[in-house]
């Protein structure tokens, strides 16, 4: 082995703690960077990947069956620029009813024998594909899918001859959203067919102009007027991007924090490792090593443990990313199988590059020192630094070991500042993640709050409910049973009614309410709750889309009758993409006198046992054609994923921060080992030594915590508000304001905990150090 090799090997082996710390810090930095980078990639282009995986349709076109034949449509697949086509699929628009529940609304159904195909390969997410007439598969992301409970339901099409029934046999995902449901082609004839659907892929479809050109080429091969409607994949992608945008601010924040932490800690660790070797550099130069050899030796000493750590971090990052990606696949409809290779490569190159540059700069500086100066460099900090702090702390009425330790950070102000920053980042990450989880939970809690739901129908067994068509509950009797039940605090009766307004195209949904507790289900962000008919409360998207504000009056059309309604409040309500209107039932009864509540949200007095209450009320409701349903209390998968990721990333950041502190304490303790020997020779007991080492990180921990806690709070409020805006909603203050000041102080003290955790390992070592050995260390 060459002399340089021996120097490198001994350097790596001699400072084992530092070598391990470098390896661990780099490993965790790489793990968090791989995870953050992967999530960023997964969240910024999920639609494009899913579109590619499912061979999505660049153009979904509808044709008038009276003007074009199936054969002509099949031939249109050979139009200029068309690279693939599926269809023609016969289509029909159905208006199904679901038992005695409110109408579902029109739904486009395509007759399609197979889910697979060269264009728009539909993916089944539940159940199976329709194999015979009488069966339907629903678009799983559609508003009518009804989740897993939808499979097995029967829809009756009462407006069609013979009132045919369709059993929902499966749910499927179509990235192009080509239909709301699919049946076998022979079923369409019974559903009043209204045309054909063709799905096209073009050789070039990256821009609107290219898609338009493709559409024109297709239309040119068909009779004039045959093409009645079409939808570009770019429109679908734009809508999908809105959902992904919800995640982007969150992931970017974590990505930036993670990368900043990695740069800070890795830089600090490497620079510290090289600077403590200055005396050794002097020895090497005295022995004849050239400055270049010295620099190469220290570069290698940093890169060897860093490379091992980076590889371990890469393995860990890829392992952790796999289950996380499977969850994001569920949310985004993608089928990503692992970390993108370029993410691995970029992280590896970035982190090792950072290590190399930091080591190079520090080692070059040391290498340029005159040999005699390098040899003269002691292990203790330069005289004069931090003496003011030592004088000040000496006067604090605390045990002397503690006051000695408190002054230590001021002897190395730059290093202490980087550790303050690391602790601040770690604390901010924890405050951010806990606050974010609380915010997301409050988003869930902020709408539709009710303890118990009462619905029309008949319970048959514990988990099965029959909602026979045509039956309706006795509203007055049901309400009487609810109010008579012990434990009832209040109720809100609701019924959904279609309305429209000139400011928005298409039909809107009004949730007409009765009862004095309806405001309990919503969180207002502006204005007041309605106090009588002719008033309504809407969500931010309604105001944005209609260009109205609280205080404005809007004309709603209900049952063909115009009604002037004043907007009195803005509430957080995501129903119907935030376009649902909340208004007293009396606002609409002039136009629809038959309107009665179909559901009741029931609010219980505090301390009431919900299960016991529900069981008793169920018995009372059974003869009245109603039953107690489940109040929606589950947390959506996307929020669970965000919470999981937040916890994981926070843990990584806290670990990096603690390792950074550990490394600083390693450097400090090694630099001060001789002083430590003097202290012990003068009678400093092991417990006092531990107290001194712990005290040396208290100041940095407190300052880091004091900076990190408000920074985390600010980040949480900014990111959550940004996430809300990305989705088009103004969030209630209760969603943003998740911290009590006292809780924030406790989290601020978390910085101290991170610092003490990092210092504890070395404090024990310092306490055990042989005094005679330490005294010999110069």
């Amino acid at each position, binding site marked *: 082995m060459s002399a340089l090799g021996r120097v490198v090997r001994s350097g790596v082996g001699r400072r084992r703690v530092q070598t391990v710390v470098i390896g661990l810090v780099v490993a965790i930095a790489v793990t968090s960077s791989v995870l953050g980078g992967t999530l960023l990639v997964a969240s910024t282009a999920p639609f494009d990947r899913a579109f590619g995986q499912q061979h999505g349709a660049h153009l979904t076109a509808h044709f008038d069956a009276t003007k074009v034949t199936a054969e002509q449509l099949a031939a249109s697949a050979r139009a200029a620029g068309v690279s693939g086509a599926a269809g023609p699929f016969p289509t029909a628009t159905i208006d199904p009813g679901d038992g005695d529940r409110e109408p579902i609304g029109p739904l486009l159904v395509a007759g399609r024998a197979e889910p697979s195909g060269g264009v728009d390969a539909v993916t089944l997410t539940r159940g199976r594909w329709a194999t015979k007439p009488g069966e339907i598969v629903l678009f799983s992301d559609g508003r009518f899918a009804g989740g897993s409970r939808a499979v097995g339901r029967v829809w009756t099409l009462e407006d069609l001859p013979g009132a045919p029934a369709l059993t929902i046999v499966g749910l499927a995902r179509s990235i192009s959203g080509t239909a709301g449901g699919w049946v076998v082609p022979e079923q369409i004839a019974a559903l009043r067919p209204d045309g054909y659907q063709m799905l096209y892929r073009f050789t070039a479809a990256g821009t609107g102009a290219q898609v338009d050109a493709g559409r024109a080429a297709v239309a040119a091969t068909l009779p004039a007027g045959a093409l009645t409607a079409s939808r570009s994949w770019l429109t679908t992608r734009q809508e999908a991007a809105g959902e992904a945008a919800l995640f982007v601010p969150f992931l970017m924040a974590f990505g930036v924090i993670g990368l900043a932490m990695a740069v800070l800690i890795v830089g600090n660790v490497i620079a510290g490792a090289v600077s403590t070797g200055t005396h050794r550099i002097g020895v090497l130069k005295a022995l004849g090593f050239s400055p270049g050899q010295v620099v190469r030796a220290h570069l290698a000493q940093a890169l060897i443990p860093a490379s091992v750590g980076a590889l371990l971090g890469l393995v860990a990052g890829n392992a952790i990313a796999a289950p996380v990606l499977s969850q994001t696949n569920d949310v985004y409809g993608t089928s990503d199988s692992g970390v993108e290779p370029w993410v691995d490569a970029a992280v590896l190159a970035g982190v090792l590059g950072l290590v190399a540059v930091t080591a190079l700069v520090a080692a070059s500086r040391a290498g340029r020192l005159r040999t005699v100066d390098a040899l003269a460099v002691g292990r*203790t*900090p330069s*005289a004069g*630094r*931090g*003496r003011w702090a*030592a*004088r000040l702390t*000496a*006067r604090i*009425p605390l045990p*002397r*070991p503690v006051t000695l330790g408190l*002054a230590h950070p001021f*002897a190395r102000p730059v290093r202490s500042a980087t550790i303050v920053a690391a602790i601040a980042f770690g604390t901010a990450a924890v405050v951010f993640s806990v606050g974010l989880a609380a915010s997301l939970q409050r988003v869930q809690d902020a709408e539709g709050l009710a303890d118990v739901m009462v619905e029309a129908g008949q319970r048959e067994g514990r988990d099965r409910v029959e909602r026979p068509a045509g039956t309706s509950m006795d509203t007055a009797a049901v309400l009487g049973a609810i109010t008579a039940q012990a434990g009832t605090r209040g109720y809100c009766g609701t019924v959904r009614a279609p309305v429209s307004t000139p400011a928005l195209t298409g039909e809107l949904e009004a949730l007409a309410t009765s009862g004095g507790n309806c405001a309990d289900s919503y969180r207002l962000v502006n204005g007041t709750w309605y106090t009588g008919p002719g008033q309504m409360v809407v969500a931010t998207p309604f105001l944005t889309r209609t260009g109205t504000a609280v205080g404005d009056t809007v004309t709603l059309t209900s049952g063909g009758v115009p009604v002037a309604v004043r907007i009195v409040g803005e509430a957080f309500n995501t129903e119907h993409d935030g376009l649902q209107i909340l208004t007293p039932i009396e606002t609409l009864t002039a136009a629809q006198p038959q309107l009665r509540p179909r559901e009741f949200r029931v609010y219980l007095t505090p301390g009431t046992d919900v299960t016991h209450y529900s069981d008793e009320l169920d018995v009372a409701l059974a003869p009245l054609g109603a039953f107690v349903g489940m109040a929606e209390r589950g947390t959506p998968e996307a929020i669970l994923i965000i919470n999981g990721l937040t916890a994981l990333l926070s843990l990584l950041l806290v670990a990096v921060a603690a390792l950074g502190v550990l490394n600083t304490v390693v450097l400090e303790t090694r630099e001060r080992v*001789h*002083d430590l*020997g*003097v*202290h*012990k*020779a*003068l*009678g*400093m*007991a*092991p*417990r*006092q030594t531990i107290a001194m080492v712990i005290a040396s990180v208290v100041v940095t921990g407190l300052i880091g915590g004091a900076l990190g806690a408000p920074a985390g709070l600010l980040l949480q409020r900014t990111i959550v508000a940004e996430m809300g805006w990305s989705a088009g909603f103004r969030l209630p203050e209760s969603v943003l304001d998740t911290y009590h000041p006292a809780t924030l102080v406790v989290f601020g003290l978390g910085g101290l905990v991170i610092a003490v955790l990092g210092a504890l390992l070395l404090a024990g070592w310092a*306490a*055990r150090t*042989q*005094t*005679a050995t330490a*005294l010999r260390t110069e």
Partner: protein
Amino acid sequence: MIELRDVTRRYGDGPPALRDVSLTIAAGEAVAILGPSGSGKSTLLNLVAGLDAPSAGSVSVAGVRVDTLSEAGSARYRRATIGMVFQFFNLLDDLTVADNVMLPAQLAGMSRGAAERRAAELLGTLGVDRHATAYPGRLSGGERQRVAVARALMNRPALLLADEPTGALDSASGEDVQRLLADLHADGQTIILVTHDTALANACATRTVRLADGRIAADTLAGAR
């Protein structure tokens, strides 16, 4: 007061630094340990100070079995019984002279006010009180060693251990420290002085123990020299 019985100290596989050393020192004696480098002088001093433990044998000081003490027990023992003066002073550069001197007392739990009074008294006695608020780096070698002696005497130790106290000083400063140690002994202070400076030993010690290869080669009273 001090009794080393059949003490051996071995480091690794090499020859022992001390082998079967037995030595008794009475209170009030000033004993110089002489010998060439590697003879075991500093090892003997470390064993008496409780900074190191013998591989075999026992070390007792003022009735305390130093060799059996725990780390915490050793610290308490040093605070209560021992004052140490080193060749390179071992003053803490980031503390003022007064803070350096007060440190052993404060580690022992003495209040800052009481420690300040005691330090001022000692610095005055040793003639370096004008440097109380200065940092050690600004003092001459002799002054630094006087400060180190003040620190060693802070807790009124029964035993003063000095390891080559003039080894890093010029001759004038060395003579100054030599006089200081002689005066302390004249006041009844028990001293063990490790040196290879025969003149220092002759001036300060009432007894000379010469070590060679880890064994006592000679043990001579001052009057017999």
